[in-house]
């Protein structure tokens, strides 16, 4: 545990020592600012709605989620593998899981800091006299952090697979994008396939139900919008995000272990 904490501290410090972190923060603050103004004027000055749009309601949020985690995670493992420091870490007296968890928490913390840029605007508005619905805003913020954690864990898995940071970033980007649009993609495919299958096979409906249920279990968008967006704190939804995240963190650890056997 203390090993994970040490790794976490080092990783977060290194992140802020690199220009990338500051550039990402700047971009997030700037873009969020522009959209906040646009949302406010579109919603006739409804602050809470505008903030909800920024924390998951609008597509800018998901664009950030698809672009930023890969940029963060590409350095986490593949860069260490490339520069040889992975050999140092894996021969230090800490377990592989501690290394992965420490790095994961560091990147997620950074995303939490990044989403705090939205809170900056909420605070500014509050200070100006229009208090937003803080419960809704903080709920959305928590959801944003949880969703970021999920995408970070996907990015880390990609990062553990290759020793080239650029490839890792690209792989993570594709994976995140696919993960996001998978339900709609599946739906689309289902419609296509059904028209073919319905002629030959019975019981298509049952299979279809089954696939739909499976896809729903992976649907980040609907889970997010069902829970965090309206400001409902549903533990079931928290578990949804945490369990997928845990799965990818676990897989990353296994890949790291397997790397030793393959090299």
């Amino acid at each position, binding site marked *: 545990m203390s*090993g994970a904490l040490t790794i976490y*501290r080092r990783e977060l*410090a*290194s992140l802020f*020592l*690199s220009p990338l972190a500051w550039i990402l923060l700047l971009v997030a603050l700037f873009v969020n600012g522009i959209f906040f103004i646009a949302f406010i004027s579109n919603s006739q000055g409804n602050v809470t709605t505008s903030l909800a749009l920024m924390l998951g309601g609008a597509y800018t949020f998901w664009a950030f989620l698809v672009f930023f985690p890969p940029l963060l995670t590409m350095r986490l493992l593949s860069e260490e593998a490339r*520069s040889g420091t992975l050999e*140092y870490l894996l*021969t230090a007296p800490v377990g592989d899981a501690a290394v992965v968890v420490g790095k994961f928490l560091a990147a997620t913390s950074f995303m939490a800091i990044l989403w705090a840029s939205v809170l900056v605007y909420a605070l500014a508005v509050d200070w100006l006299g229009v208090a937003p619905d803080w419960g809704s805003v903080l709920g959305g913020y928590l959801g944003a952090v949880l969703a970021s954690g999920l995408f970070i864990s996907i990015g880390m898995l990609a990062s553990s697979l290759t020793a080239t940071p650029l490839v890792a970033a690209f792989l993570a980007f594709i994976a995140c994008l696919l993960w996001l649009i998978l339900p709609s993609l599946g739906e689309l495919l289902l419609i296509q396939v059904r028209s073919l299958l319905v002629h030959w096979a019975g019981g298509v409906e049952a299979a279809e139900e089954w696939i739909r249920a499976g896809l729903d279990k992976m649907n980040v968008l609907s889970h997010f919008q069902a829970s965090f967006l309206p400001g409902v704190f549903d533990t079931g939804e928290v578990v949804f995000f945490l369990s997928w995240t845990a799965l990818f963190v676990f897989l990353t650890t296994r890949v790291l272990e397997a790397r*030793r056997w393959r090299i």
Partner: protein
Amino acid sequence: MIEVARLYRRFGAHVAVDDVSFRIDKGEVVGFLGPNGAGKTTTMRVLTGFLPATSADVLRVAGYDVLRESLEVRRHIGYLPESVPLYHELRVSEMMRFQGRLHGIPRAELKRRIPEVLERVGVLDRERQLVGKLSRGLRQRVGLAVALLPDPDVLILDEPTSGLDPLQRVEVRELIRSFAAEHTVLMSSHILAEVESVCPRVIVIAEGRIVADGSQADLVREFGGEGYVRFEAVVGPDVAAAVRLLEGLPGVTRVDERGRVGIHHSFEIRGAGDLREDVGAVAMTKGWAVRELSLAVPTLDEMFARLVLGGDGAAAPASATGVPPATAASPVAQGLELATGAAQPGAAPPPGTPGKKIIYSLNPFDQGASRDLGQPMDVGGPAPPEDEDR
């Protein structure tokens, strides 16, 4: 401290480490010597737990089983991989603190120990500098400091001087030698001079197999073979006759012709002891213009080449094949005699020199005169030979 028995490591079909067994006791400094790709790094990685062994009967480091008690092993070793992995964005002191925390060293002790270790490797004045801004040599020292910080029982250093300039190399070697008192050191290198100067014991590894293991002197004696006299001179067109002549010298067991450069032919003459004087005397009497006459003593280098290249690459017979030594046409029958006088004490001849030598001239005008090799002499004749540089 390190115990390895029947260690195998395969990468697919390639066998990187093939049945390696050795044992290193506490306080030993052992050099792991082998060409690139011999399996040194792989063996070290297995020892540190970075790579698992394909199979091994015994694999213990610092008293712990590498596979089952990996974390304990990692706690007791200091490992410096060849690439010297350090975080370039950290300062030297930060890097050291990170290592200290990973090893669970208490803060107070860390505060005391970091300057101590940095001082020892000579980078205390660079404490505030970024690791990435340091030169290669300094980074190597910082890497050593990082490995030393938890005061490990065993230091495993993979090519600790690769990529350094000769001066830095000497400094790093000096450092490693200073570790010997407190740590068990296993270092690898493909540079002989390094192992020669640092490690009393050498393990030679080639193609994944241990080909030799022992002290330097033992290895040279066992595998280096004897020395030989390198002789380069103008011997005229009849090289075979020259070879026969040289072979006829007492003590000579083999003469190899090593090709010619211009009008000079070179030979390698093997036999008991230091044959330089005898060869020189022959050259003098035959009037051969000598360009080189030297004794090549086997080094770890040659032993290494011989072991690693498999067999006696350096001593393969060249033109001398088929010429039986001391036949009817031996030089003795032609009037050359070489006698050995009584050994002179006090003169302190080089080891292997049988003492005073007397040579009988081949020059027909000398009428069989003999002379002591210790005395200077004019050599007349059609082709005045050069003076030898004995």
